[in-house]
């Protein structure tokens, strides 16, 4: 099997889900890379759960301001037309279903769209942050992740073995190998990475995939 997409390419594919005028929260990991993949000319309002609507690009070197950071604690700017607010106001925005979309990282996604992304049981402690709020708060939940773990185990599984972040909440899975939609009848394979066959994707997946009649290659 060919290599599949790079992390940057996964972010680029996820960015194709953005539409002009959308309000979107980006999680840690691959999703933060999406910031730089927004198609030119598209106005998208990025929300950061600790109190920004209208996250801008990172500041130029030397322009960092410790009072302006993103949820991963990296320096950011805000765009013209941004607004700042408290955490409670931010989560009222998230939980009130005002965001069009969130793009999150994941450890596992199940066939019915359950998401596990906050705790590896072996570590004995995990961090939730805003993920549990976002999975039910955002109108659409897109997950980006590596298709398999470092030791080759599927991350798309029949049932999550890791503690859940949310139940039946994922709409779309974007991995280095495939784009999979979580439908009411299970997982639908919509796109495959260049050089990768549906059979190869199925072999790396722990749940049954239905191949979409419109299956196509991922273009990034």
């Amino acid at each position, binding site marked *: 099997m060919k290599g599949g997409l790079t992390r940057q390419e996964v972010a680029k594919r996820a960015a194709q889900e953005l539409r002009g005028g959308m309000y979107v929260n980006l999680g840690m990991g691959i999703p933060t890379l999406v910031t730089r993949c927004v198609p030119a000319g598209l106005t998208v309002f990025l929300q*950061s*759960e*600790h*109190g*920004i609507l209208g996250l801008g690009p990172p500041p130029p070197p030397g322009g960092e*301001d*410790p*009072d*302006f*950071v993103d949820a991963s*604690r990296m320096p950011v700017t805000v765009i013209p037309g941004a607004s*700042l*607010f*408290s*955490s*409670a106001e*931010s*989560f*009222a925005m*998230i*939980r009130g279903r005002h965001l069009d979309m969130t793009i999150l990282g994941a450890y596992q996604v199940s066939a019915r769209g*359950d998401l596990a992304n906050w705790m590896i049981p072996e*570590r*004995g*402690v*995990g*961090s*939730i*942050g*805003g*993920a*549990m*709020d976002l999975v*039910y*708060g955002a109108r659409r939940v897109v997950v980006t992740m590596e298709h398999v773990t470092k030791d080759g185990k599927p991350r798309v599984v029949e049932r999550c073995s890791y*503690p*859940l*972040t*949310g*139940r*039946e909440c994922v709409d779309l899975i974007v991995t280095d190998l495939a784009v999979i939609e979580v439908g009411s009848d299970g997982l639908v394979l919509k796109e495959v990475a260049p050089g990768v066959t549906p059979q190869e994707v199925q072999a790396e997946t722990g749940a049954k995939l239905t191949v979409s009649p419109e299956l196509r290659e991922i273009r990034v």
Partner: protein
Amino acid sequence: MVNKCYPSADAAVRDIGDGATIMFGGFGFCGIPERLIDALARRGVKNLTGMSNNCGLGGRGVDILVRNRQIRKMVATFPAQREPTPFEEQYLAGQVELELVPQGTFAERIRAGGAGVGGFYTRTGVGTPLAEGKERRVIAGVEYVLELPLRADFALIHAYRGDRYGNLIYRGTARNFGPEMATAADVTIAEVEELVEVGELNPEAVITPGIYVDRIVAVGKAS
């Protein structure tokens, strides 16, 4: 004359005793009440219950109190960082307790504590281990869990500017949990970068009205 100013961070935290429950503002390194935490470290009080988004890291913020073994329990949303922290080590060794809360539930429980809300139903956490033991309820076809308010003896927060009535404004993402924590403690202590004259803050843009702030200390800009 109403004047809530204290001469120093040490003076402002002088009555915080062993076993106190304390909310700490801040998100990562942003907006943490560093000078008040330093003063609390100097006081050396023990068995504290802390409520804070993180449990500190890198020798800053709550991490100082954790390393000093002043913390008995944390209520937090993001205790585990990429690399193990002193808090994680103490937790795994059974030396500190942890109540893990989703961030939105954490913020909303603090707001409820300050706003007289006896409890509220939220979808967050439904179907996850964090809903275990909590009342579940279906309202209009949607499943919720009941969450109860959080309150503390003291809230320690960091703001940008304040006046002697206790009015505060914040800056950027340093605002985070400050405004709600200020409402949910018996005693709220704010460190501010700059103390301004009463009337200098635009009433339309005051974020924390003075009613919520009991003590204010000017600490200057963090270095």
